[in-house]
């Protein structure tokens, strides 16, 4: 039984099935809502694919079964290698690399069974200790402390780009140009465009004393990007252009165009996001325990949980979201990650490797392992070389 389980033939068959399955998993849309799936496939096809678990292939029972079988195949192979005393020496490289695969699979199983993952959504000054699970029907994570979002910042590489399209309906010409606040632009037929100022989040209020309208930005976030321009045609006119409200090109009367036949359309392209950072505080019974900053690639760890900066809302500058993870499988995964290249390197370039791999690496590995690895002439036993069915 164990010989059959350890056979290379089983590995080849498993490998082929896994490759075909994984290709299917990348071609068939995964984890889509039922409505979207029905838009893509016919009802009969949906039924067949759904019954086969192909819409959630990588978490389906049969795919996990294949991985378990791969683990059993690898385990049996390792046991066979150790038990077969006739080989006299153990092929350490192969043993370590195959053990690494087992450790990685064990880590994956541990993660699948025990990991807690959720998304914590907060707004500035808001605190919470309940994290909804990332899995569709997963339990809510109840943190033994509260997480408060003290501050949130989005850095951009530039303040954004401004484009204006000018259309002359009477003469039938139009011109598009990128503009910068504080600069003049000359268009066709002596039309001059003077870009006066830019307000990222324009608000207007009436001054109670003077009774005049005052324009200002409520924040530096481009919630309501607006450009004030002066158009010198006949006559000269000052207008506000709104990227999000193109129909309101003038503050006072809401007219659609600067003149009867001259239309202006403003488009704002936000600057590319450089980084987004959250200042978070860990509280217990209203007492501050820790304050820290977290950003993408710089997670924050506390109480066995790791907080990963994961999202922001371009419409709401106070919103920040975090992936909250507690995964006991990670140490196993990382152990496997260390063992796998080590095993492969010994296997390929060690003393017992194929004769073509001579050289410095082999010499170094020989020095390290020579006291532990009994010497033999070949990396594979004689009958193995002939094609016996053992990995």
């Amino acid at each position, binding site marked *: 039984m164990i010989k059959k389980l350890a056979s290379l033939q089983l590995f080849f068959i498993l490998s082929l099935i896994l490759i075909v399955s994984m290709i299917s998993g*990348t071609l068939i849309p995964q984890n889509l809502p039922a409505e979207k799936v029905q838009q893509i496939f016919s009802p009969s096809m949906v039924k067949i694919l759904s019954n086969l678990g192909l819409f959630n292939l990588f978490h389906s029972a049969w795919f996990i079964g294949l991985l378990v079988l791969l683990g059993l195949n690898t385990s049996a192979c390792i046991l066979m290698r150790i038990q077969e005393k006739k080989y006299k020496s153990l092929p350490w490289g192969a043993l370590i690399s195959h053990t690494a695969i087992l450790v990685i699979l064990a880590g994956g199983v541990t993660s699948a069974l025990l990991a807690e993952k959720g998304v914590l959504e907060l707004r500035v000054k808001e605190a919470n200790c309940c994290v909804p699970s990332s899995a569709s029907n997963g339990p809510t994570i109840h943190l033994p402390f509260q997480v408060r979002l003290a501050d949130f910042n989005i850095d951009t590489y530039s303040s954004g780009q401004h484009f204006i399209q000018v259309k002359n309906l009477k003469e039938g010409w139009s011109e598009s140009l990128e503009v910068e606040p504080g600069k003049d632009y000359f268009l066709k037929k002596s039309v001059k465009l003077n870009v006066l100022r830019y307000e990222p989040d324009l608000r207007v209020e009436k001054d109670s004393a003077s009774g005049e309208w005052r324009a200002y930005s409520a924040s530096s976030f481009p919630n309501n990007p607006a450009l004030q321009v002066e158009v010198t045609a006949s006559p000269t006119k000052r207008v506000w252009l709104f990227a999000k409200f193109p129909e309101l090109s003038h503050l006072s009367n809401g007219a659609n165009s600067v003149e009867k036949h001259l239309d202006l359309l403003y488009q704002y392209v936000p600057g590319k996001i450089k980084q987004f950072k959250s200042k978070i505080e860990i509280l217990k019974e209203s007492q501050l325990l820790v304050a820290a900053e977290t950003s993408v*690639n710089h997670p924050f760890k506390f109480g066995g949980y790791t907080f990963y900066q994961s999202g922001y809302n371009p419409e709401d500058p106070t919103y920040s979201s975090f992936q909250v993870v507690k995964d006991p499988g990670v140490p196993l995964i990382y152990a496997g990650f260390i063992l796998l290249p080590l095993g492969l390197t010994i296997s390929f370039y060690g003393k017992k490797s194929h004769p073509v791999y001579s050289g410095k690496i082999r010499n170094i590995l020989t020095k390290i392992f020579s006291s532990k690895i009994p010497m033999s002439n070949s990396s594979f036993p004689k009958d193995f070389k002939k094609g016996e069915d053992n990995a």
Partner: protein
Amino acid sequence: MHSFAFNFSFAVYLLSILSYGISYITKKKFLEWIGLTFIIWAFIVEMLYIIWRWSGGNYAPMSNMYESLTLLVWLVSLLYFSFLYKISSETKRFPLLGLGFWVSLFSLVLLGIASLNDRSIQSLMPALQSNWLLLHVTTIMIGYASFALSFLGAGIYLVCFRKKVEEEKSYAFDGLMERTVVLGFLFLTIGIILGSVWANSAWGSYWSWDPKETWSLITWFFYATALHLRKSRNWKNEKFAWLSLAGFIIVLFTYFGVNYLLSGLHSYA
């Protein structure tokens, strides 16, 4: 610098192909050495270009298709020189000298594809602002470059030595295929691992079954099977050449196909 480096490399690879071509027709061996010299020139200019781009952008130039292709071309040349030196010093002859023609042609095609992409130095998105970028992309690209050489070696093997298994050059090319697949497999493994560790530090998930990840694993399984077949079932020479060709087709899909046809976490690459 963009245009100079690109045009120079392109022209030099063309000259290299020309030298190898004339050498093949006239049977004058020294022209192969001239062809090799042209590849060395292109290699040096590409290296300077990568350094210039690195200093200009303040990050390792590996963040998009154009940059990774430039790195790949450079690595293919580097590995070609390494294996040329290694196998020549072992055999005391130069059985891989003619491979330079195919290395030049392959590099020329890659540069052509690179030219279709945006060459400007772009600012990095938050997820890519990490030292893992350098480690992950470099190791993966060494793997791809190694598989590319195994593909070129396999092509030559199947065309020239399929029926001449006993020839010395046939041994050299079979050895090249094995060594490059082994090196590529090792670096692909390390690259996938580094990418996984990076994903865990950026998003808290070491594996998401993203199309790029999945296709990398498909590539890994394919080459693992190929190496097992070679070691245990004696699939050497012609059979291993076919495996190398098929493996590189999978690599190409993982590298290009996934980016353009399937959406996922690596869509920017």
